[in-house]
């Protein structure tokens, strides 16, 4: 069963800007799905339409088989949305932010209190329940929005750049939380500019650019298309020129750092053997960029 099915979705804003030019997209139940695209590609418009914040121009959206226009209540009940920017009442306590959202979904008070506690505990915010939300740190505000989005137990959770602007430690803990939520059966759609995040968490991916889906596949199959890996090598002794090794593209970044393009067909063993023959001692090795980042740039440029 598809969690989300979008057909020929188009959106033209009043100023004439065409944000979506006919998007077709299916996301399967239980998936952890990445929706990537550069700024202005149409991601936020697409999420806005799915979450009823933006009026579409034409096309259809259905969530777990419920058409968003014809079966609105059932469709909306299936979705939870974590937006890019903070959009809760900053004068309410964390508890009331989540509790009010439960009320909007028609959850009776007693049950809403239980769900609110569960969600705040899951997001490690229970001890902050009486704190006025504007006093929370940036990471806590993001987690509060996730707790709010989950209070009605949605089957589809849409996370629009949930880790933007949070430090690496919080980002990692949020990854664990998202994985846990997905394991419990919630389908997740994630948009992010951290491609490492998408590569680590998501099983399937779509890339949107200029209002159109330009790539849609399993993450593994997309990454397998990458023919060349880029590495950075720190070397023991300074060089005045980059060594020449057949089949590899090597550039001297500084006199002790080499940038190396390694074709998958050649591998690393031959590289190290050749460097060793030229008496170049390698101290350490790291990826120049995330693999998905290279593919993403190739696709959108």
């Amino acid at each position, binding site marked *: 069963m598809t969690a989300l099915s979008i057909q020929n979705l188009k959106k033209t804003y009043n100023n004439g800007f065409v944000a979506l030019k006919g998007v077709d997209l299916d996301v399967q139940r239980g998936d952890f799905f990445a929706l990537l695209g550069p700024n202005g590609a149409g991601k936020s418009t697409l999420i806005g339409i799915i*979450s009823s914040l933006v009026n579409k121009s034409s096309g259809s959206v259905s969530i777990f088989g419920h058409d968003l226009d014809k079966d609105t209540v059932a469709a909306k009940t299936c979705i939870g949305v974590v937006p890019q920017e903070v959009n*809760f*009442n900053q004068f309410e306590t964390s508890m009331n932010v989540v509790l009010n959202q439960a*009320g*909007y*979904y028609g959850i009776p*008070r007693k049950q809403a209190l239980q769900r609110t506690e569960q969600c705040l505990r899951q997001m490690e915010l229970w001890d902050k329940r009486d704190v006025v939300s504007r006093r929370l740190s940036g990471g806590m505000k993001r987690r509060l929005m996730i707790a709010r989005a989950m209070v009605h137990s949605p089957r589809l959770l849409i996370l629009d750049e949930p880790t933007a602007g949070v430090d690496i430690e919080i980002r990692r803990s949020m990854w664990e939380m998202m994985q846990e939520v997905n394991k419990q059966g919630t389908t997740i759609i994630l948009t992010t500019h951290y491609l490492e995040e998408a590569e680590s968490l998501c099983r399937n991916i779509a890339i949107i650019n200029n209002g159109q889906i330009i790539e849609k596949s399993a993450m593994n199959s997309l990454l397998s298309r990458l023919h060349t890996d880029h590495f950075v090598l720190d070397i023991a002794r300074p060089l005045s020129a980059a060594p020449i090794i057949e089949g590899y593209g090597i550039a001297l970044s500084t006199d002790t750092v080499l940038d190396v393009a390694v074709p998958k067909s050649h591998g690393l063993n031959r590289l190290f053997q050749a460097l060793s023959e030229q008496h170049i001692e390698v101290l350490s090795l790291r990826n120049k960029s995330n693999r998905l980042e290279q593919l993403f740039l190739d696709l959108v440029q």
Partner: protein
Amino acid sequence: MNYSVAFFTILIKEIRRFTRIWPQTLLPPAITTALYFLIFGKLIGDRIGLVHGVSYMDYIVPGIILMSVISHSYSNVVSSFYSTKFQRHIEELLVAPVPNYVILAGYVCGGIARGVLVGVVVAGISMMFTHTTILHWDIAAAVFVLTATLFALAGFINAVFADSFDDISIIPNFVLTPLSYLGGVFYSVAMLPGIWQKIAQANPILYMINAFRYGMIGVSDVEIELAFAMTGGFIVFLTALSLLLLHKGIGIKN
């Protein structure tokens, strides 16, 4: 789905909002109206004598109460709903399966609650200066609630169209306040010279104030039936307009 839970969630949130900030919402009308009663009612009123057979103080009490109801039911909804838009937590409601009429009812009832509470506070203050008895409870109560409803709806529409905080103060300052003062709060229309009586009758607030005055002290410059018909007509029109705006997403959706 049980929409009453969503309705009461909005309503309770609204009531909590204006009671939390009571020094801004409940205290000022108490002080302002106490000054009105002291200056206009007591100091000046004693020299004016009777109006329509009642003391000047008793004559102005209904108008001052209703003027507070108008001002506060309007300003509660306009400021709360605009702030909901401004802070973008309107999105919490739009994402959820809350029908437009429930959103409207929640905010309007919040405005009515503040209008009624302020009206009761002002009525309580008036008791310190005079002991007016209410002659027609049913008419007074109906006008009280209907007026609060009408201006809460008007405040909602103002908030929908507002793009800045300036936009939410223009109507209260430049339309509502002058119309309230010219709506016969402090005088009877019969005191106005010829043509001004006709002009004054084009002011809808005149009808509500006089209907409320009739409910309290049995004195009115207008037909009570006409006042109810006008207020009811405006409520129906503004409700339909508000629902249309919400349906189209004007001012709240792209």
